[in-house]
């Protein structure tokens, strides 16, 4: 089981809800993924077109834990306000601190992320900060009391997969709270790799919503996360320079 704060999850796959072309496809992808945690953003309602459909209408709200993000915030104060707006819904179980410092790379602002994490923890939130793969920053966030650490594999939506497995390994080794690899995953092998490195879970969005067949990809990701985790628990063989035969060398008939 994956335990974050007071919450426990069977599924180690967290799913973002952005950029799906179609709410019916999204609903099916969510079901097939067997995720138990959905992320979403907090935005103004369109008061001039109030009948626009909302994806929450298709979802059984009791079935999931909600992880709203603070995307849009550029400062800790803005992130705290977004988190409190989300909390006022009564549907916010945890909060993903996402404070972007660069509009091109969408990499997080480490200073504001640290500040927001501290402020939200003081207000009693269950806090999961999205961070770069900076090993010392991850430690600082954990020391503040973050309930999980969410380092990026590569830039958001880039699909590049894990570009710095060494840093992720360092973060996973040092961390006493769950590590959820979040951002940049593109294909099932990326999700499996994160889990084989020892991550406790992954969060992905574009990899599924942007796939040609999001429902199929959601199922693939579910299987990849399970396979990667089993592989990690099973204890893989070491890599060796030279071969070791699998068949016996004796008893060869001549």
């Amino acid at each position: 089981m994956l335990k974050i704060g007071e919450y426990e999850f069977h599924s180690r796959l967290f799913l973002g809800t952005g950029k799906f072309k179609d709410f019916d496809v999204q609903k099916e992808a969510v079901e097939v993924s067997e995720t138990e945690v959905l992320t979403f953003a907090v935005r103004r309602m369109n008061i001039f077109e109030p009948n626009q459909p909302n994806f929450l209408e298709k979802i059984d709200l009791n079935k999931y834990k909600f992880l709203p993000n603070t995307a849009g915030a550029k400062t800790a104060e803005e992130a705290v306000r977004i988190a409190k707006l989300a909390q006022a819904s009564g549907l916010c179980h945890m909060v993903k601190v996402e404070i972007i410092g660069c509009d091109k790379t969408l990499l997080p602002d480490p200073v504001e992320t640290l500040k927001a994490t501290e402020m939200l923890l003081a207000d009693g939130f269950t806090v999961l900060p999205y961070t770069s793969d900076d090993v010392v920053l991850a430690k600082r966030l954990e020391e503040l009391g973050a309930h999980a650490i969410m380092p990026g594999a590569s830039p958001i939506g880039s699909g590049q997969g894990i570009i710095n497995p060494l840093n992720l390994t360092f973060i996973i080794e040092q961390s006493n709270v769950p590590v959820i690899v979040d951002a940049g995953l593109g294909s099932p092998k990326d999700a499996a790799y994160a889990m084989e490195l020892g991550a406790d879970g992954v969060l992905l969005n574009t990899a599924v919503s942007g796939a040609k067949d999001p429902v199929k990809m959601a199922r693939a990701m579910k299987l990849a996360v399970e396979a990667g985790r089993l592989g990690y628990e099973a204890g893989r063989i070491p890599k060796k320079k030279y071969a070791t035969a699998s068949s016996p060398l004796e008893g060869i008939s001549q």
Partner: protein
Amino acid sequence: MELIINGTNMTVPSSIKTVTDLIDHLNLKSPVIIVEHNEKILQKGEHAHTMIEDGDKIEFVQFVGGG
């Protein structure tokens, strides 16, 4: 009366007394409606008895897809 709703100036009938009246007037229908009134975030149960006055600033937000 004049209100600033989601950053836009709007005129609404003075018969609107509460946040709930305003939500109904605007026909807002999202499964989740979150309200900030004059920079105070309202909890769900407060909509029906929070009074609206001329010049008030209101933010209506909801959850949308995001990662």
